[in-house]
């Protein structure tokens, strides 16, 4: 009986090696391992054996099954690999040829993501007021994301930022504020700069929490800049962004990189709404950026873009933004201009 099993196995393995396509492999599988297959047939006869023979034969039959199965799997993969290797020959297409005419059809359905549209609108508004658009890396070092913004190691304000740390010791930037430092490192004042970009926070996802979102950071350094100047510029910007003749007001707040720090509220659709954080750039931050704080002063502000997009279009769930779902995205067709 054991010899018969060995013969069966050898026969199956031979067929597997000889199989040229997956249909042939399927046939081997059915013939040997199927319910009416040859290995099963052997197992069915076990009952007629002497009790002391049953164990070894059962074991051998199972071993044969496993061996054939694994050979089938390997051969299947090999066929796929070979087929994919052969594709270089069998399916080669000359990439320098023009495409068939039919592929030019259906080109009217394009859309711009609603976040991009708002970013562009804001970019234009900032540009019209003389703010240069800058960006920095998404993967930031501790110095630019924290220390140079007056958040030294072990400072309790680090709790305000739920940070993704990376295996190389860097982090994903938790705000667009590091761009302030990079702007100062690369430019001499006066500076009027804005960064519209992606930021990351260590968050579990739900309708109102994302780990990936977008911020705008404005930054203004000149001689003798006052809170009054900040109010003027922010009110003008917000009137453009919200397309309403908004009023603004300041409340005290705390951000380590500004002094004094504020929350700014705006009247929007008839109600006061908490909108952004802002303040006069902390002298230490100016010094970290290589700017003499006795000669220069400035203001900075930051706000979340995703929330504004939700307000603008009435989007109910933050997760749509990153879903790639065309049922969501297609609704913004025509919402943007080139």
């Amino acid at each position, binding site marked *: 009986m054991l010899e018969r099993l060995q013969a069966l196995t050898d026969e199956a393995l031979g067929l597997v090696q000889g199989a040229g396509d997956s249909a042939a492999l399927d046939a081997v599988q059915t013939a040997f391992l199927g319910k009416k297959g040859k290995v099963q047939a052997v197992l069915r006869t076990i009952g007629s054996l002497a009790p002391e023979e049953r164990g070894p034969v059962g074991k051998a039959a199972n071993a044969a099954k496993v061996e054939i199965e694994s050979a089938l799997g390997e051969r299947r993969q090999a066929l796929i690999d070979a087929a994919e290797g052969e594709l270089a020959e069998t*399916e080669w297409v000359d*990439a320098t040829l023009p495409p068939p005419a039919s592929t030019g059809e259906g080109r009217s359905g394009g*859309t711009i993501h609603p976040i991009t549209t708002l970013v562009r609108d804001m970019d234009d508004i900032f540009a019209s007021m003389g703010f240069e658009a800058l960006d920095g890396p998404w993967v930031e070092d501790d110095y630019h994301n924290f220390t140079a913004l007056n958040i030294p190691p072990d400072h309790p304000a680090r709790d305000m930022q739920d940070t993704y*740390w990376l295996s190389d010791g860097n982090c994903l930037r938790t705000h667009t504020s590091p761009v302030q430092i990079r702007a100062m490192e690369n430019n001499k004042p006066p500076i009027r700069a804005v960064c519209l970009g992606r930021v990351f926070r260590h968050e579990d996802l739900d309708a109102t929490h994302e780990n990936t979102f977008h911020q705008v950071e404005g930054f203004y350094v000149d001689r003798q800049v*006052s809170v009054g100047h900040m109010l003027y510029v922010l009110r003008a910007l917000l009137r453009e962004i919200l397309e309403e003749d908004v009023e603004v007001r300041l409340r005290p707040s705390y951000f*380590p990189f500004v002094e004094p720090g504020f929350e700014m509220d705006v009247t929007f659709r008839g109600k006061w709404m908490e909108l952004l954080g802002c303040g006069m750039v*902390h002298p230490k931050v100016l010094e970290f950026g290589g700017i003499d704080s006795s000669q220069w002063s400035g203001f900075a502000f930051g706000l979340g873009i995703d929330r504004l997009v939700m307000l603008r279009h009435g989007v109910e769930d933050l997760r749509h933004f990153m879903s790639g779902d065309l049922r969501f995205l297609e609704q913004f067709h025509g919402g943007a201009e080139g």
Partner: protein
Amino acid sequence: MRLSYNWLAEMVDLSETTPDDVARKLTFHTAEIDEVEPFGAELAPVVTARVTAVRPHPDADKLRLCTLDTGSGDPTGPEALEGPVEVVCGAPNVAEGQVICYAPEGVTLPGGDDGPIVLEAREIRGVMSRGMICSERELGLSDEHEGIIVLPDDTPIGKPLPDALGIGDTILELANVCITHRPDLWGHVGFARELGALLRKEVRYPEVLDADAAPIEGEPFPITIEDEAGCRRYVGIVIEGLENGRSPLRLRQRLESLGVRSISLLVDLTNLVLLEQGQPLHAFDIRDLKGGEIRVRRAAERERMKTLDDVERVLTPEDLVIADGERPVAIAGVMGGLDSEVREDTTTILLESATFDPIRVRRTATRLNLRTEASSRFEKSLDPELAMQAALRFAALALQHCPGARVTRVISDAYPRPPETIQLDLKYSHVRRRLGLRIPDMRTRRHLSALGFGTRETPTGVRVTVPSWRASGDVACADDLIEEIGRIEGYTLIEPIAPVGPFEPLRPRPARSIERRIGSFLSMDLGYAEVKHRSFYGARIAERIGVADRTHLMVHNPTSEEHDRMILTTAGNLLATVATNRSRVAAGRVWESARIVCPRADAGEGLPNERAVTGLATWNVDDEDAEPGALFLSLVDDVRRLCERLGVSGLKVADADEQPLRPGFPPTVWLHPGRRAVFRIGDDVLAIAGEVLPSVRRAYGLSGRVAVAELDTATLQAHATTTGVRYEPVLRYPVVPFDVAVVVPRRTPAGDVHEVIHDAVPESIRDLHVFDVYEGDGIPEGHRSLAFRCELFDRSATLTPAAADDLRASIIARLKSAGWAVRAG
């Protein structure tokens, strides 16, 4: 943090204001109040009443019938309160003449763990009971239900309970992030000081023990600070003759209203001082302090102790401990030890009031994952002067609550290096210029003094002495003072002022504009939908595209395994989006602007290799490859047109091997080896496009054909032109059409032939393109015929037949010298 309005009112006269006004004032001048909510309001329907008669219940031994006088009735109270009422009461301690808490029928009581109790008039063993006399449990005050609450004899009757007991309050809920930098605001006293300044009222600070009033003779309890960097001050007071029972109802209620559970009188008093002064205290039972001494020292490596929460903690020398002569009895600033805690029979304590190093406390609390009310205050950097203040306050309270208590030993005060007083010079003009507010000098001084800053005039401004409670890191420079002046004066008074500055044109904004040009062309002209993906994927997607074995930049603390590494290519997430949409959209196109990140090759310090890229994907579920490579060719054409639109010149398209888009990034193993193109200018790689391998497609559960491309945005930008097209004069003479078929080896790219034809007569040819490809009869094995069409012209005159023949001959000669057969002319 929660603030009790009543408590604030004990320190500042708030009689002319309301909780909402106070919340508003604080929000606009100090820190944001998130919520204002009444506390104890649910007890308003319960009233005080006097038991005028107690009779046995006719039918039950343990029940009594009580007649209650509810007074003349509160005119604002419920109607049921007119005249005497009868209730059944089962409490053993009810007696005639008592003032009790009466809950009339119809009232809903907070109740205990079993939830609210709705009272109805009901018969109890044949006798009608109209409401009930309450125990603490029914009122939600505690678990006590052995007997009814008996109020002092002089309590007025017929009053709503919150008023009668003084437990009704309004709680102001504070946004903690607003006071991260203000250690002085982590207790009620700090807010009272703020309100005093804002409302221009005197502040009545809580009474403290006058240590000098009665002579104390005993030796101070020995305290040694071995680690002076870790502990700035350690005050210890020994108090004897204490009784550690249950706290009075009012004290318990105050703690309860601020979210602190009542434990026992001594613990409650430490918590009360914490909430009042912002200083964490700890009371040790003096019997448990072995060797009769305290040492503040670093923990030994792997030293162990059990904290109050009954968890054994393993410590490191980074941790600071409070030890007695033998072992640690508390983790400094974080939590006390289990076996030195005050107990029911405690009569003598050592009260600890200390100032620990904020960073050390924060590190220990973080490492042990043990953030406590104490640690969150210490890590804000507390004022060492507060340590003594709070200790004396505790002593005063202990003596007040325990008639037999006394302080018999001189107060211990280990204070190695008191900090120097901070003085700052402030110019009035600086204040005005920074705020943009014309604030009179006198008001500047007044605001500062109202907050406790010392002021002395100088020729141009004021010399300011920072009070100790603002000097532990909070106020350190003149700008910090400007904030104080500005917020007390009121930020809402500042008017917008137009800035005057140099107005210069913006420098070009290349990064932004290239991305915008790419996006507009793809979405508006080529019909792609812009998608956004997170910058991560997980092992599952990495395996699907065959890059799982590549070194990714990993997220150290991922929120999900789907987001545990930074993307090395946009293909992984783009294909997932194709899979999301394919069941509803048979054929589509999407693009995204993204960044791919790979770890630094040298594994050194610094930022990783981060590249801005544009990813494209296009799919067609029904594509059976009837027109071989149609989807691939279409994508290649889209990328080529995009490059043309960006003004890129000298672009070469060629078959690609597995090369990556950028060195260091993974080879494009997810692409079909026969349908994979690289776009180059010279040695620069602009893009790679290709059809997705069948096995990758299957891994995503996709049928039909899918193609993806990735463009290196910065390289595109480097080759793009922004100056616009170069004009060529309009052709004023007729053109001569010309077709030519070239037989080439099968794998010779049409692009190479195109280049040869074009370069033969570069000044006289236009609109050159392939219009037919043929293999089969008449063409040698392994070859194909490429038919080109173009127009020939002469820019300066009508092309004569002879000149046209010359052009044709030049083209054919070049083709032949390239080794190709020319079939027609």
